[in-house]
């Protein structure tokens, strides 16, 4: 016998169909691509095309037959010149993949570690720290460039890129039109081809215009390409509320981006965080979301002067050592947590404050070790509580330190509403130090 023509599956879910009509009969010559039959499923009527050329030997299933199972031989095809063609390939081996149980993605496997001592420091604003980090990395690597709205001639909407155009010129400090979707996609394409773009979003609110390129193109391509096509890119800009700019300009995207495998997500608080982590983000071979905060830009912190200063992504910092409760915060909320800790200290409560720094990967080890010591945890974030970073941290603690907890985990978060404009209302929405103090006192 010759090649058997099998009943084809015409959709991912088809298991059987009706062979409604033959368009060829025994003895007919067919060429690849000729329509030989029509098949009806519950959804549609489809045509079956010949894949090989030859002569129809025998029709094995008469037209009008219902319920023909997929892969049933429906006709025989004699090969070229009546020769017997190769037999059908053997069916695929049965999938034997065991079910892998993995409750959560791998996290930074770093043990809670001491902060490296970088020696002398000087006071620096977060704004200067960010600019210095970009300048240092651009001097070091010609593939690094900055693009975004108003980054060049205007010197940055928030003056983060002050002076960079003068030093690096218009090929490396690039003003874009207001087209987040387009220029983000362009930067991602450039990164796939080996360049190392820094994309500045004037605020992260506008990154929603481009989020498809960030998630579907930048974050997933390495995996989809089996490791071939990386995307070394940094997306940075101010995130979260500023001051009285209304709901559309005041959203925290931490939990949005931290949700997605294939990204790293970083949220610095101090000038040292900003400088050390931005340098690490630019050198990282993966897409990194770098969440800054507009209110912090003008704040001054001590920052190491060492030319090589850099911080590892994925490691939290214990900003204040304590014994009675662990307060975990990131970005501007670290400052709120520190103020709360001072108030608590005056009342005889010793709070340990963890500056998360990195949201993905998250430093579970440092958080869990602290909770095992204090037996209580309060998380603080500016964003909405539902499906937020606090929910994630507290779940990690429940999973890994449940038996050490002496009280229910608490989360302090922004109110679950779009941010209002009115000064009095806005103030009521964003976590204040006394909110944190109250949350701590609820469990002590």
């Amino acid at each position, binding site marked *: 016998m010759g090649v058997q023509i099998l009943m084809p599956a015409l959709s991912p879910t088809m298991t059987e169909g009706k062979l409604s009509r033959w368009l060829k009969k025994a003895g007919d010559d067919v060429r690849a691509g000729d329509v030989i039959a029509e098949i009806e499923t519950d959804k549609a009527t489809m045509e079956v*095309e010949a894949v090989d050329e030859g002569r129809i030997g025998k029709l094995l299933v008469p037209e009008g037959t219902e319920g023909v199972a997929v892969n049933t031989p429906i006709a025989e095809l004699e090969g070229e010149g009546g020769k017997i063609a190769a037999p059908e390939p053997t069916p695929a081996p049965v999938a034997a993949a065991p079910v892998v149980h993995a409750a959560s993605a791998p996290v930074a496997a770093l043990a809670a570690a001491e902060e490296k001592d970088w020696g002398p420091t000087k006071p620096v604003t977060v704004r200067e720290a960010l600019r210095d980090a970009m300048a240092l990395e651009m001097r070091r690597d010609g593939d690094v460039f900055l693009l975004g709205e108003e980054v060049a001639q205007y010197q940055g909407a928030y003056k983060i890129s002050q002076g960079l155009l003068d030093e690096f010129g218009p*090929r490396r400090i690039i003003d874009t*039109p207001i087209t987040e979707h*387009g*220029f983000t996609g362009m930067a*991602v*394409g450039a990164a796939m081809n080996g360049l190392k773009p820094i994309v500045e979003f004037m605020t992260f609110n506008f990154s929603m215009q481009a989020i498809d390129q960030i998630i*579907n193109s930048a974050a997933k391509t390495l995996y*989809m390409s089996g490791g*071939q096509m990386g995307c070394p890119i940094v997306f940075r800009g101010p995130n979260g509320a500023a001051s009285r700019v209304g709901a559309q300009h005041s959203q925290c995207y931490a939990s949005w981006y931290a949700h997605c495998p294939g990204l790293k997500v970083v949220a610095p608080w101090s000038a040292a965080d900003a400088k050390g982590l931005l340098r690490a983000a630019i050198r990282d071979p993966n897409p990194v979301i770098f969440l800054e905060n507009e209110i912090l830009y003008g704040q001054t912190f001590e920052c190491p002067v060492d030319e090589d200063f850099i911080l590892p992504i994925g490691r939290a910092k214990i900003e204040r050592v304590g014994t009675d409760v662990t307060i975990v915060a990131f970005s501007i909320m670290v400052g709120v947590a520190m103020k709360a800790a001072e108030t608590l200290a005056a009342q005889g409560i010793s709070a340990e404050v963890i500056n998360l720094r990195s949201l993905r990967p998250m430093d579970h080890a440092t958080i869990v070790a602290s909770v095992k010591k204090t037996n209580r945890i309060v998380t603080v974030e500016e964003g909405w509580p539902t499906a937020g970073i606090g929910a994630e941290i507290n779940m990690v603690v429940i999973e890994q330190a449940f038996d050490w907890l002496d009280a229910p985990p608490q989360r302090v978060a922004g109110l679950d509403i779009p941010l209002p404009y009115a000064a009095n209302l806005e103030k009521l929405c964003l976590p204040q130090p006394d909110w944190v103090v109250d949350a701590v006192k609820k469990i002590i």
Partner: protein
Amino acid sequence: MAQAETRKKSKGRAASNQVLTQDQLLRGYRDMLLIRRFEEKAGQLYGMGLIGGFCHLYIGQEAVVVGIQMALEQGDEVITSYRDHGHMLATGMEARGVMAELTGREGGYSRGKGGSMHMFSREKNFFGGHGIVGAQVSLGAGLAFSNWYRKNDRVAVTYFGDGASNQGQVFESFNLAALMKLPCIFVIENNRYGMGTSVERATASHDLSQNGAPWGIKGVKVDGMDLEAVHAAAEVAVAACRAGEGPYLMEVETYRYRGHSMSDPAKYRTRDEVQKMRTEHDAIESVRHKLEALGVDAAAFKGIDDEVKAIVTDAAEFAQSSPEPNVSQLWTDVLVEG
């Protein structure tokens, strides 16, 4: 009929340009035939349940990618949508690796983790394989950007369909590419239907080749069923891009014989329409006739047919014998480590 007239016109335009040599025609014939036979085999394996999910076949459109690829040089970048098997074969990626990716096996270009719509080859400068309609256009502008940044003379070819041509980011990319004079060739493969919606029902633009005109992007309409016309137009576009003139837009009028994907019954067009394209305008047949007129004999065609068949048979066998990816692959390639 309007389509046919346009086609005749552009044919006339192309005829004034260079004509392919017999060797080039043979090469083009072979490359187009490989794509067609590969896709037919993919359709067959899909029918047998060996390929899952979405599978978008390129049958009918072969002259577009083959004609353009013949005008490119080593190092030029190529990126396209999810109807991508033809582009991969045209850039020289191996049929084995493409077919094994379709069957989701270890031997696939993405080691089974990408599938039909997501394959890449650094070596061949093929940048995928993208499943979000229109996303590859911005990414393609980025490939061109990297050439501009590095001041090399490479060009990036960005393929997309008539459906994608209406996406906002496509126009954003036109603007960026024109503004920065990026060496980007935008190729609209107009196969008349974005899934089931005809071009006429999807766009108010009367001439997609002029969609970049507001930004000063030169546009040309080309008969995509004529290998020589496609190649001639691509030569002009590539030369302009390489010379630093900025982006170029080619609208290539083509036709897919199969449905949008395997599960598309194609009720939005008549069988006569499909049959007419196949019998009267098939690009492979047309090149074959030209070659016959040049005196190429049956034995030569038989040789090409046999070579192509052997490649496709080998690819199909490899795609079935290659093992499924090891479970240890599940957690790799999420991030670049270190």
